[in-house]
């Protein structure tokens, strides 16, 4: 499975949830597959989806799902110790680990070589780390939401992108409707 197929698969689970989505093609795919006010699309700043998601989870009680990529987590690897040491049980970090930098031409990441993020996260102190296939992501995500414990999901899948339009929504509109959904 590639990322867009996984997003299509889990879209019903994401419905109504607060979702912070990684920059580039992941956000474009989520926007095309299941746009909703409670999606926060990152238009810039590679690597910070997990940090934005954690800050959001620590500041309000609703469940927060940050959808990140292996390349973006490697860019901001310091995020994993911060997540581990500031536990928010309403926080789920879903790493779509396809071993490549999808938005820039599918160059390989180190996660697609020797580095195993499912080993890195526990080494950083993260308590609930689940590794799964693309096919099992929906089941694992549902269980994480129901479990009420901070969870890091490393979803191992194939490299590849769906061709989706660039997001043209104004960033302030994205932020404003997202904050409305947080408050609702």
């Amino acid at each position: 499975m590639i990322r867009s197929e996984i997003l299509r698969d889990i879209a019903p689970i994401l419905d109504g949830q607060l979702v912070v989505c990684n920059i580039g093609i992941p956000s474009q795919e989520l926007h095309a597959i299941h746009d909703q006010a409670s999606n926060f699309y990152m238009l810039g700043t590679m690597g910070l989806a997990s940090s934005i998601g954690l800050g959001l989870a620590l500041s309000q009680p609703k469940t927060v799902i940050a959808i990140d990529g292996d390349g973006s987590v490697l860019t901001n690897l310091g995020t994993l110790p911060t997540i581990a040491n500031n536990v928010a049980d309403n926080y789920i970090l879903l790493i779509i680990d396809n071993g490549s930098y999808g938005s820039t031409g599918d160059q390989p990441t180190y996660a697609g070589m020797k580095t195993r993020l499912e080993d890195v996260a526990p080494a950083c102190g993260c308590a609930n780390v689940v590794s799964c296939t693309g096919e099992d992501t929906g089941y694992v995500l549902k269980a994480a939401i129901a479990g009420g414990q901070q969870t890091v999901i490393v979803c191992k899948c194939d490299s590849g992108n769906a061709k989706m339009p660039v997001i043209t929504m104004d960033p302030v509109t994205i932020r404003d409707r997202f904050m409305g959904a947080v408050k609702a």
Partner: protein
Amino acid sequence: MNISQRLVADFVANDVGFITTVPCKQLAGVIDAVEAHDAIRHVPANKEDEGMGLCAGAFMGGTRSAIIMQNTAIGVTINTLVTLIQYYRMPLPMLISYRGELREPVACQAEMAVHTKALLAQLNVPTYHFHKTADADEFDAILKYTFMCNKPVAILTDASFWGGYGE
């Protein structure tokens, strides 16, 4: 109340409830005061751009946030300031130790100090410089200004403001 506690009291009076910090010897007292205050969630960050991401999330969660860092971080965070904080119009007070100014003992700090104000000006970041203790009297107004205009705002605090390096 010492100067660190005064600054933190101003944060609290302006409903700042989430502060992320990256360590600095000059700011150690403020960071301790942040950690000690019950009304503030203190989340130390490993790098300043990560800290700004945390602040952006906290703000969207309904909690006013702020970052405490060194001026070297301006070099680290330009992309985050521009494409996250400014692009999405988020308020972010940045309490910054202005290393490399008068009384600085470490020569390398001067290299970033000479670029600090120029970079902030280039980014159109409103910038205030605390040199004397009385300058902190404006901190409350600066925080109100930041949350009024939804911009990142820099407060540079130099060695003279903090009483030097114990030389």
